[in-house]
């Protein structure tokens, strides 16, 4: 135990004396979360839209006026027939078309329910989603005003349809993604680098010719990073709660446990990388190309998995980050419990055991 403590203390010296790794450890998470938080904004202003008013009655006119008065939209075109919608989108003049059904006002009064369709150009899915939300909000407000003076419950039913990207999944939920990337980066890259550094410096030779057992070296190497990664995870969650008002609907405890699981998965990957690379440079390259890129691109963090080509969808299954993102989204945004993410958790556990198994097998007690 004393040996282990001594080893861990040495690792902490390394970490705190290397300015670069300190920056990667603590500067990066904060920088990334702020960057993503402010860059992916959900504020829209003066977005060009077109109106297709098939009702042309008092109610529809009132709603159009409300929209025209809002600072978020400007109505640049009034179109007459449904067939013009596609051409107007293709020209790129407008981001959305608002279509009122025939007899909109009559329907609202007689049937107590009327339909309006919001068509959005989802080539920019983030924008499309936001526009749709804003228009719904305006409609809702109008509906509330209408219902205030009467006991009858009038309902305007907005039907949103995203053009070009029908199955839109939100990318706004950047927190799970950033958290995943950071934990992966810190855990896998930093451990693999710190082990290969010993090989490069020649100190691994001395460690091998000592009574330290291989697993003591490995655990000693990863222990500080478990600790630091947990701190990182806490910082990210706090930042997203207090700076960006992202809710944590589920259990914080469960989130913590799952994070530790993912950290261990990443650490196991880091050790695996270090057993196959001889220099820090190789370890860094493998970590960046082999882990970071897939984690960012194929995990559903930035690009929705459902809109990827089938081969990539299949590949995404072997990326641990994919499962962790599902777990984090589930806990933070949907507030679900372990019962709903049991499958994902099990997959991560299996992956971790596999990686640890391979690394222990590959870890050499000699130089070759």
């Amino acid at each position, binding site marked *: 135990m*004393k040996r282990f403590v001594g080893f861990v203390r*040495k690792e902490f*010296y390394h970490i705190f004396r290397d300015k670069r790794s300190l920056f990667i450890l603590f500067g990066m998470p904060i920088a990334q979360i702020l960057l993503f938080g402010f860059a992916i904004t959900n504020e829209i202003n003066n977005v060009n839209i077109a109106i297709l008013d098939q009702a042309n009655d008092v109610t529809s006119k009132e709603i159009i006026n409300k929209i025209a008065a809002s600072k978020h939209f400007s109505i640049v075109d009034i179109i007459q027939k449904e067939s013009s919608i596609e051409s107007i989108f293709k020209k790129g003049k407008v981001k959305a078309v608002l279509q009122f059904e025939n007899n909109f006002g009559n329907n609202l009064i007689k049937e107590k329910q009327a339909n309006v369709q919001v068509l959005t150009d989802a080539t920019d899915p983030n924008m499309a989603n936001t526009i749709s939300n804003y228009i719904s909000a305006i409609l809702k407000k109008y509906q509330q005003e209408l219902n205030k003076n009467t006991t009858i419950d009038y309902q305007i039913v907005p039907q949103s349809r995203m053009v070009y990207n029908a199955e839109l999944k939100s990318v706004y939920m950047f927190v799970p993604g950033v958290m995943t990337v950071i934990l992966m980066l810190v855990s896998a890259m930093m451990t693999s680098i710190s082990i290969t550094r010993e090989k490069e410096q020649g*100190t691994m*030779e*001395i460690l091998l010719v*000592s*009574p330290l057992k291989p697993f003591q070296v490995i655990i000693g190497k990863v222990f500080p990073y478990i600790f630091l990664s947990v701190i990182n995870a806490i910082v990210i969650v706090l930042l997203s709660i207090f700076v960006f008002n992202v809710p944590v609907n589920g259990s914080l405890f469960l989130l913590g446990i799952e994070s530790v699981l993912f950290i261990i998965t990443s650490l196991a990957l880091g050790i695996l990388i270090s057993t196959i690379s001889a220099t820090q440079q190789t370890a860094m390259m493998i970590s960046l190309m082999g882990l970071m890129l897939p984690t960012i691109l194929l995990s559903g963090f930035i690009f929705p998995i459902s809109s990827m080509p089938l081969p990539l969808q299949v590949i995404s299954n072997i990326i641990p980050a994919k499962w962790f993102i599902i777990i984090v989204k589930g806990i933070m945004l949907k507030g679900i419990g372990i019962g709903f993410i049991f499958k994902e958790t099990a997959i991560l556990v299996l992956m971790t055991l596999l990686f640890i198994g391979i690394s222990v097998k590959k870890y050499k007690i*000699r*130089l070759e």
Partner: protein
Amino acid sequence: MGISVSNITKSYGKVTALSDISFDVKPGELFGLIGPDGAGKTTLFRILTTLLIADKGQATVAGYDVLKEYKSIRNSVGYMPGRFSLYQDLTVEENLNFFATIFGTTIEENYDLVKDIYVQIEPFKTRRAGKLSGGMKQKLALSCALIHKPKVLFLDEPTTGVDPVSRKEFWEMLKRLQKKDITILVSTPYMDEAALCDRIALIQDGKILQIDTPNAIVSHFPKPLYNISANDMYGLIESLTNYKHTYSIFPFGEFVHYTDKRDTMDIERLKTYLESQNLTDIHIEKTQPTIEDTFMELAK
């Protein structure tokens, strides 16, 4: 006890690093492996410190088999690899502490053993190891290799890249350590250091050329050896190369070391020949061969 090596062979692909090496080091002996880079010294050290497995042959260190009892060896030897292998970002004291801890001991416990060496670097104990001079790094590395009181000490080229003052101090320290019943196997590419060992093995291209005490090795030199100097070194070498009786010539500092093909040679006739080659200030005298002379004779 000590070290025993029999018929060790090791190849990397097509390259044979060690071929059929055998020797014994007695307990408490200071044994030198003398040979140039690429002779196989480091490979041999790695086999004995259980870092590599030999293709053929057996070896024991402190009585333990390098293959079967590698764990016992790792507990009882000290190893200083060829390049500076300490943590550059840790201070002198932290390095020593770390190595004491992983061997399950403390600095205090074995302070006696390293005291001699460590007091010289103790004034700098809060300095990072990376900022030490070559000589101090080497002393720290030796302290770290000694802190667990090893029975056998392996030093792979400890004096390479270190200035003469530090080299001399280093050898003096080894001599003192030897008195504390530590068996020492040291390698060096520098022939002048060979004389400081109890026994040496001359090694080149993975083969041992000779094993003996430094004095015995020198006395085995087969021919009379002459120191020759003249006003122009280049001219002297050229002339001697073309001399029909020349057996070997090697520049040796301000002299040329010369041996003759014949059993008895006539100094005056050689002098006359050299003068005929427009050389002046010619001095020829018999000299004592060095270990380097023997090495070159054996390696020819």
